[in-house]
Structure formats: structure tokens, C-alpha cells
């Protein structure tokens, strides 16, 4: 690395790496230089002129956001000249800005307000008529108020550069310039809301948040989005035990401020009117509400009876429940009920990957690797649609590190637009394209490979062999589909694997085997909906379902237990890259219980509580640390930041069950059962338009 540059800001000698912009050098040293248009990570604009500073020997004020540091440079950021420039730039800005702060959603969080407070003039000399245009609604979630817009172009860059969508543009010229949506009067885009989030003023507002609350009336809970497997941190704004808003403005978590439409808005399923809020027992063929004690007692009695006669249990765990819940569930099933018939809906071949990487270290990619990497190979995945944060990371690496992207998919994907090379191969035969890419990949210094569910079993082994043959550091990520799909595998919600990839000596029935078994005595389903697309062969099976909604599976249940969603409980989840993160309870929904508690109470009713241990998330986590390889990470560390679970380093000697893997191909606007109950996801035009390209066409069970 080149020697740092020594320079002076406000009389303080500071050091900065060559090429650092003055605005950044100052900020890193606790000296704030205001800006609207400058935004870390996006292209430079030098448009707002708020960051003008005085540089000794320069004839006029200089723009700190485009000025690289230089040895001996002497900068003043608070001189009278600078203060005046800020004050009068703000005066200009306010000429056409409506001072409707009392009714503006942004009031209290507005950067313009803050700047005027700090640097602005107390009075305005502007007595002319302001420009006015009508507010527009661009989508169910995006509103644009032109007069409030200060034309900092952050939204345009977030959409173009950050998302690769380019749905926003600037129209007209001069003071009548406005931001405009890509389809005349409306937007057709990812509906991610990043444009709203990044807007420094109240020009872009959220259809769900607007006029709901003043920001200071909310309490904030940082937790993890419960939809896809990327594991974005979302900070939920809660008022009166209601979630009002999701965002991540503090940039904590792996995702910085990134959120997709699901992370930002689709928490809304949680208070859908059809949310189950009372246990139900089937009486005379009809599900009737009953008390929790009665329902739990009923389940315990039936389970005890079936267990006593050595009956056949089938237990289907969830891709959304916490590691603690999953661990506790499999422990209860294996030790309490004495069955190995436990499984979950498998969405990616993590098992073969871990086995194939046996003996290596540092070969599993983190979400940070998807930004730090210089070369990426994407196999069999419509990343932007199915794994939005991973796609965002790679785009950022493209912009900041000139990363090269190679794509092998069955259909066109967004990555094609900036890929060095895109190859079309039918799903399942992606690895046939590897040799074609060998030369190009071999020329690069490193490689991160992400692969979708169509690359499984033997193909994964071939892929790893190919990676090894390149003779350079290669990292892998087996894509999975839901918020804790990876955790479900790690925690042993698998017929053939116990937690930590320990092969079962007596593998149980897999999910399809359970459903197909005509002699099944009990089916216990936790937040999963297997009967949506398949039948249950056993007529006599006693069916217990824990869910948020009366799904197809729940409708077949003998007992329905209303469970709490991810936003209503504590615990940990593990994302697609094996990073463990902490869920924090934001709200309570009356009548529901977290799945961990439900399982614990069933155990208790069966008299198995002492053997199972307390159903307290932190306690169960302690047990996970002790017994699941790779998870020995102290909870306070997890609470601080995502931690990658150290990869299992040894063979996983089990039969290849990769045939069971079926990608869900959820799009930006679907999320299994949860998506059905999200008002926002169902209201956006893109869902109806089936914009999700390849994904929706691929049939899945």
C-alpha cells in the first residue's frame, strides 16, 4: 500500500490513504462536511455544492466530495466563507422547497431540516412564487412529491447502480427538473423502496408508512427478515405494538442499508386479518377454537398414545423457524418421541457441498465475500430475483472493484447486463459450461461460485473439482431459499442427518416418504405447508399443525396451534452463507406462542420436560454451541454482528439424497405462505405482470 498522505483539516494534522476524498478523510476524523448528493458507494455528482470547503492556495471554494487528498493540503471546513456558502446554498434550495415539515413524513429524520438547523439562515429573502407540481403515486409503495425534491439524484443512483434496475430518471431541465418513473405515470421495478430510504427529504415517501406516525414516536427493533435466505437485517419501527416500518438506515448488519421489497414491506403478513390467534381442535369434522391448555393436552395425549404403541410419527420442520426451535424440535422428536422421521423442505444442496469441501478451510463464501470478491460465477440462479441481497453485493463489487461476473443460467437474468460472459444451459446441466469458462476464470486472481438448486449431487462434486483445478482461492455458496433453510440443515431437520451433519445410524423417513406412507400415525408440521401441492396418503394420521395461517396443511389438521412469526420472538437464524444472526422480538400477537414454547409445552404435557430441558431460546442456544459443530460462537457476539458458522470440516457420509432438493424459486414478490398474506406483495403490479422472468416458469412441487 502506498504511504498515507498527511494534510491539515481545521488545523488538525490528519493522515489518509492516497486517493481518499477530502469529505471522507474529514468524516473519518470526526469532522463533518455536509452533503446531499455525495453518498458512499454511489457515483460522484458534485451537484449539491453543500460540501464546498476552503482549500488554501485554491482560488475558489473546492468541492470536498470530488477532491482527493494531497500532501500538505490545508483545508478549512468551518471558515466564514464556507459557512456562508452553505447558508446561501440552503437558501437557494429552500426557494422551491415547500416548508410543509409539519405534515411531512420525513420531519424529524430529514437531512434538509437538519442542515438548515445547523447551517441555514434564520430568515428567507425569497418572496417570489414557488414552483408547484402535484404529488404522484408511482406504485402502491412509492409516492413522489416533486416540490420537496432537492434533485440530489441519490434515488436515481440507488436504482441504477445499486439495484441495476434503472427505473428512475431525471426529466425536464433546470429548475423544473423532476425525478420520473420508468413507465410514464408509474413504476415497474423491484419495488425495493431503496429510493425512498435514501431520499434525504420527503420527496419519495412510502405508501405503507406515510402519515402513520412521527418518527420519534416509534421504538426500533433490529431483527432479521424472515423471507429469503439472504438474512438481511431489518430495523422495525414499532408504535403501540404495531410494526409501522422496516428499514435499516443505521447500516448495521450484513446488508448495510439494503433491503428488498420483502424486507422493507412484507413484514405486513403478521397482522393480516386471517392470522390465527387461537388454537383449534377438530370437533365433528370442524376446527373449533379451544384454549391453549386444552389443545396442548390433546396433542400430548395423542402423541403419548402413538408413542406408547410404537406408532409412526412424521415431523416436518420449517425453513423459517429459529435454530433453537429447529434444534429443540429434532431433539424432542428423536429423543422424546423416539423417531428419526424428521425432515424439512430442502431447497439447496448444502450437504454435498460441505462433503465435497471436506478438508479445506475458508472455502464457504460469506456475504462479505460476495462484495470483496473480484470474480463471480453464478450457476443456475436468477440472483436478482431470488437472492436480491447477494445480487446487490455482486453489483457493488462490480462498481467498486471492477469485479467480473460470469453467468450460466437457463434464462436471461439481470446479471447478463454486466456479465463478462453469459451462457445459457438448461437447468441441471449448468456445469457443462464450465470448461468453456476455464480459460477466463483461470486468468483471474480469485473466484466466488454461487449455485442454485438445479446444481446438486454429483454436479456439486464436479463443480468443486473444477474449482480446485483452477489452482486459486475459490469460495462457494450453495443457494437455499428461506430465512433459515441453511439453519434447518445445520440443525439436523433431516431424516439422515443429526445436527452438525452427523449421519444418523438409523435414517428416518424423508418428507415425501412421510406423505406417501399410508400407515403414518401422526404428522406434525411446524410452519410448513407440504399439503399445498401433495396429498397425505395416510387417512388415519393425527395431524398437528403449527402455523400463522390456516394453510392447506392446517385445514387438514386435527389440531392447529397458532405460532408466532419471526418478528414476534427471539432466537437465531443462519443465512445462505452460514452466517448466524439474531432475531429480536418486535411485537406480540395476542393468542400466539413461539414454536419453541409450543414444542416445550407439548413436551411438558407429555412429561418429557426434564429430559428436553428448558424451552428458553438462550438455553437452547447454549446447547447448540456445545453440540453443533461450527456453532460455538458466544451469543453476545452474534448479537453484535453476523458470525459465520465455521464450516464443518470432514466427510459427511450419507447417501445422496439430493434428488429431494427442489428450489422454491420464490421471486421478489412471493414468499411461500407468508407471501400470500402480505398486502404489499399482492398489491404491486409486478407480481401480476409476472415480471419474475425465468423463476415463475420453472415448475416446482
Amino acid at each position: 500500500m502506498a504511504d498515507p498522505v498527511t494534510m491539515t483539516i481545521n488545523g488538525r494534522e490528519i493522515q489518509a490513504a492516497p486517493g481518499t476524498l477530502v469529505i471522507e478523510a474529514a468524516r473519518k476524523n470526526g469532522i463533518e462536511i455536509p452533503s446531499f448528493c455525495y453518498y458512499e458507494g454511489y457515483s460522484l455528482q458534485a451537484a449539491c455544492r453543500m460540501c464546498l470547503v476552503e482549500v488554501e492556495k485554491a482560488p475558489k471554494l473546492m468541492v470536498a466530495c470530488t477532491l482527493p487528498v494531497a500532501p500538505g493540503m490545508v483545508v478549512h471546513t468551518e471558515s466564514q466563507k464556507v459557512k456562508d456558502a452553505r447558508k446561501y446554498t440552503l437558501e437557494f434550495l429552500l426557494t422551491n422547497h415547500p416548508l410543509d415539515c409539519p405534515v411531512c413524513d420525513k420531519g424529524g429524520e430529514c437531512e434538509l431540516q437538519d442542515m438548515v438547523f445547523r447551517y441555514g439562515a434564520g430568515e428567507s429573502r425569497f418572496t417570489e412564487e414557488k414552483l408547484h407540481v402535484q404529488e404522484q403515486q408511482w406504485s402502491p409503495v412509492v409516492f413522489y412529491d416533486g416540490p420537496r425534491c432537492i434533485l440530489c439524484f441519490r434515488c436515481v443512483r440507488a436504482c441504477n447502480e445499486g439495484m441495476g434496475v434503472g427505473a428512475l430518471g431525471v426529466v425536464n431541465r433546470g429548475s423544473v427538473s423532476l425525478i420520473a418513473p420508468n413507465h410514464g405515470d408509474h413504476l415497474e421495478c423491484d419495488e425495493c423502496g431503496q429510493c425512498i430510504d435514501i431520499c434525504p427529504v420527503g420527496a419519495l415517501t412510502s405508501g405503507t408508512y406515510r402519515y402513520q406516525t412521527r418518527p420519534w414516536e416509534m421504538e426500533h427493533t433490529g431483527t432479521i427478515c424472515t423471507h429469503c435466505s439472504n438474512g438481511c437485517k431489518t430495523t422495525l419501527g414499532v408504535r403501540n405494538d404495531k410494526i409501522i416500518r422496516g428499514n435499516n438506515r443505521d447500516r448495521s448488519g450484513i446488508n448495510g442499508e439494503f433491503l428488498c421489497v420483502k424486507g422493507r414491506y412484507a413484514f405486513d403478513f403478521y397482522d393480516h386479518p386471517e392470522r390465527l390467534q387461537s388454537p383449534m381442535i377438530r370437533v365433528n369434522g370442524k376446527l373449533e377454537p379451544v384454549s391453549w391448555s386444552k389443545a396442548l393436552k390433546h396433542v400430548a395425549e395423542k402423541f403419548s398414545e402413538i408413542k406408547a404403541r410404537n406408532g409412526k410419527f412424521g415431523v416436518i420442520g420449517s425453513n423459517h423457524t429459529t435454530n433453537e426451535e429447529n434444534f429443540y424440535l429434532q431433539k424432542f422428536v428423536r429423543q422424546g418421541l423416539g423417531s428419526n422421521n424428521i425432515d424439512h423442505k430442502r431447497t439447496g444442496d448444502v450437504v454435498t457441498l460441505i462433503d465435497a469441501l471436506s478438508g479445506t478451510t475458508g472455502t464457504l463464501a460469506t456475504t462479505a465475500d460476495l462484495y470483496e470478491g473480484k470474480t463471480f460465477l453464478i450457476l443456475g440462479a436468477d440472483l436478482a430475483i431470488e437472492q436480491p441481497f447477494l445480487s446487490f453485493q455482486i453489483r457493488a463489487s462490480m462498481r467498486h472493484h471492477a469485479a467480473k461476473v460470469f453467468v450460466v443460467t437457463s434464462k436471461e437474468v439481470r446479471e447478463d447486463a454486466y456479465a463478462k460472459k453469459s451462457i445459457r444451459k438448461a437447468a441441471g446441466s449448468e456445469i457443462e459450461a464450465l470448461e468453456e469458462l476455464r480459460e477466463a476464470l483461470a486468468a483471474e486472481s480469485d473466484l466466488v461460485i454461487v449455485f442454485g438448486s438445479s446444481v446438486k449431487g454429483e454436479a456439486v462434486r464436479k463443480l468443486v473439482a473444477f474449482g480446485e483445478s483452477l489452482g486459486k482461492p475459490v469460495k462457494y455458496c450453495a443457494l437455499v431459499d428461506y430465512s433459515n433453510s441453511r439453519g434447518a440443515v445445520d440443525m439436523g431437520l433431516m431424516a439422515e442427518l443429526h445436527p452438525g451433519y452427523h449421519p444418523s445410524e438409523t435414517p428416518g423417513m424423508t418428507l415425501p416418504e412421510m406423505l406417501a406412507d399410508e400407515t403414518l400415525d401422526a404428522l406434525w408440521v411446524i410452519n410448513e405447508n407440504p399439503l399445498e401441492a401433495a396429498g397425505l396418503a395416510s387417512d388415519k394420521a393425527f395431524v398437528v399443525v403449527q402455523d400463522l395461517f390456516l394453510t392447506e396443511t392446517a385445514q387438514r389438521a386435527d389440531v392447529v396451534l397458532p405460532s408466532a412469526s419471526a418478528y414476534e420472538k427471539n432466537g437465531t437464524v443462519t443465512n445462505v452463507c452460514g452466517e448466524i444472526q439474531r432475531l429480536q422480538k418486535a411485537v406480540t400477537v395476542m393468542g400466539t406462542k413461539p414454536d419453541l414454547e409450543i414444542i416445550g409445552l407439548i413436551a411438558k404435557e407429555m412429561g418429557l420436560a426434564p429430559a428436553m430441558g428448558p424451552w428458553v431460546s438462550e438455553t437452547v442456544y447454549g446447547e447448540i454451541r456445545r453440540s453443533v459443530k461450527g456453532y460455538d460462537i458466544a451469543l453476545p457476539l452474534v448479537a453484535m454482528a453476523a458470525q459465520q458458522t465455521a464450516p464443518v470440516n470432514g466427510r459427511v457420509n450419507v447417501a445422496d439424497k439430493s434428488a429431494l432438493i427442489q428450489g422454491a424459486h420464490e421471486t421478489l414478490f412471493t414468499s411461500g405462505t407468508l407471501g400470500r398474506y402480505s398486502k404489499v406483495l399482492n398489491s404491486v403490479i409486478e407480481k401480476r405482470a409476472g415480471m419474475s422472468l425465468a423463476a415463475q416458469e420453472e415448475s416446482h412441487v
Partner: protein
Amino acid sequence: MYNQPHPLEVKVLTRRFGLPNSRSIDTYMANDGYTGLKKALEMTPEQIVDYVKLSGLRGRGGAGFPTGLKWSFVPRTSPKPKYIMVNADESEPGTCKDRLLIENDPHQVIEGAMIAGLAINAEQGYIYIRGEYRYLIELMDKAIEEAYAKGVLGENVMGTGKRFHFATHSGAGAYECGEESALLESFEGKRGNPRIRPPFPAVAGVYQSPTILNNVETYSAVAPIFQQGAEYFCGLGSPKNGGTRLFCVSGHVERPGVYELPMGTNLLKIIHEVAGGVRGGKKLKAVIPGGSSCPVLKADECDINMDFDSLAAAKSMLGSGGIVVMDEDTCIVKAALRIMRFYAHESCGWCIPCREGTTWLRKLLQRFHDGMGTRSDIVLIGDLSKNMLGRTFCPLGDAAAMPTIAFVEKFRDEFEAHLDGKPCPKENISRLVAA
């Protein structure tokens, strides 16, 4: 030619104007055309740049940057292709010379561009012509066709084996695109917002490649420099201001027109002798010396040599050579208003001070001119202009601020005459047309 030539003119760039078929390649070649190119073809790039430096030529677009020096900034060894760009987006109010240069002698422009190409090993040039000059685009296309047919342009320039291609490019109505980096954005099919500089076009111009970008008149001067000699050209002007200049005289004179005169010709001489004096024997009030961006000169400041340095010393600019003459009946407030309306209309909207400042000033000046101004408004007009000055992204903000500051400072009495509800003293009705 749309006006009669004047005997005081020194016709270098315009010397073929008025010849029969002056724009044809045959006429051009029969009158020294492409001999400059021939000379340059025998020189090294370094020699060409040095020769341009020797001529004392300074950019005719407005800023007056020494042309040879500008050319020397191009990294000739860059592996990227190099480009020549001709700025024919003439739109500075008061300026109408590039139009004539293309209309009457398009090959002179091509020759200048080709010599520039040789100076940096460029093989491709473009001329960005404002969209309103449609007839000039067609005319230039014809000239280019002729040059290809004669083997001047193409894969084998005049049989030397060198390659140079040249093409027209149409603008679509935006003053801002006359600013070089905005022109480059526009050329690439984008909004004409200026670029962050550095890097300058010499390093990252057309398609982020090294580029020479000059005004039509600058290239037009390059051809005669090589045809007739750099020393000859240099000797025509005043020190450090080589050659002649096309002065566009407009406004209240008897014989408005475009006149080619040596750099440094006295302004009063231009007005009174060349342009026939102030129209109708009226008294001279003020002159904008170099296009609307240049601070106005009061009548008593007009005894000045028209070159870059003399005007800079008088806190104005030679600019694009647009001399706008105003007689005693002119309402300065109205002139200031009209100019501000122009800048507000043409501000690209990229940066806050220019976008909001020009619009505010337009509204304020309109109200003021309509007789609804206050004494504090006079101060405010100057203040707002100063708050734009030096703080905008590109020179357009300065171009709006500088003349306004000068109008207020030099003609405060005229502003005061509009106070107290009095309508414009110079006319009965003032118009209210939105810009």
C-alpha cells in the same frame, strides 16, 4: 455573407467568403485549401503542437485558453483511440460567427480538425452542430462527402496512408451543450449535464478517450496558420493574443455584422468605424463585449483593446466575440432580465446554486422590471449573483452571475429608477412572458 465587409477587416479566416462557390472543395483547394494539412502531414505531432503554440492562437469559444498548450495535454501515447471534436453548438447570445464559418468555408473547419488529428494521432473527428443549424449540418455533410471523394478524408489521407474520418453530429437545443464536458455527454446520447473535471477532455473526452475539443473558429484559424504561417498569424494580433477574431457586432449600431479584425482592435473603433456608429446618432450607453456571459462595459469603459488580456484587466471578458451595443434608450433592467431569463431557461438543473439561483433571479428581475421592486431587492440581486459565483458545477452559473453583478453595480441608478411602483421608464408596457 449577410453583411457587407468593411475595409478595416483583415480577412484571414474569412478570406474565401464571397468567392463563387466558396464552400466547395474546388474553390477551397484553388485558394490554398488543404495546403496547411499537407504541411502538417510532413510534421511530427510535437512540431504541430509547437507550431500552434507559436501562432499565439487562443481558444475562440470563450475562455481563451492557449490552443497549443491545450493540445499538448493530450496523452499521445495512451493506448485508447484519440478523438477530435469540433464544438459548433454556437449559442452564446450575441454570437453568430461559427455559423458563417461553416456556411461559407466548411473545408477550412475540416482542415483544422484534421491538423489537430495529426497532432495527437487521432483518426476520427466529429463536429457537434446545434440542432437549429440544420442547414449547416446538411451543408457540412456535403463538404465531408467532397473531402472523402477527393481522398482528403478517409483511409488514405492525401495518399499518405494516414487515416482520418470525420462526421457531423446534431444537437437538439441546449445552450449548456456548448460547455465542453456537457457537449461530450450529449454526444454520447445523454442529457447535456457537464462532467466532473478533472479529468479534462484532453485526457478523458469522447468515450472517455483523449480528445481535442475546440470551437469552430479555433479550428478555422488552425488551417490558415498552417497555410500562411504561424508567425504571420501571430503578428496580426496583439501580444499573447495571436491572429484575428470574428467579432459579431449586434444591437444598436448602424451596420451590425460579423467582422474579422485583428485581436486587440479598439472597441470604439469597431463600434464607430466598422459598425457605422450607434444607430440614429444616439449616445452609447453600454456594451457587452463578448457574449451575454461577459460583464457589461459602460460607455466610458469602451476605449479598450479587444483582446483576452485587456478585457480581463477591465474585469470583463473577450468571450465569444459577441459585441452587443446598447444605446441611451436601452433599459438595463430589461436587458439584465432578458439575459437572466435565458440562463434560467438553459440551466441544466444539475447543481443547486445555478438551478435555483437563476430561477430566483429571473423571477426577482421580472417583478422588479414590472415596477414591483424594493430598494432591498437591488442589494438582493447582487447578493444572489455573488452567492452563485464560483460555487456552481460549471461556468453557466458564473455566466449568469457575472453580467448581473456588473449591471447592478454599474447601472444602479437605472434600477433605482424602477422603484416605488414606477413601471419601466423606457417603455409603457412590460411584457410578462414566462421563460
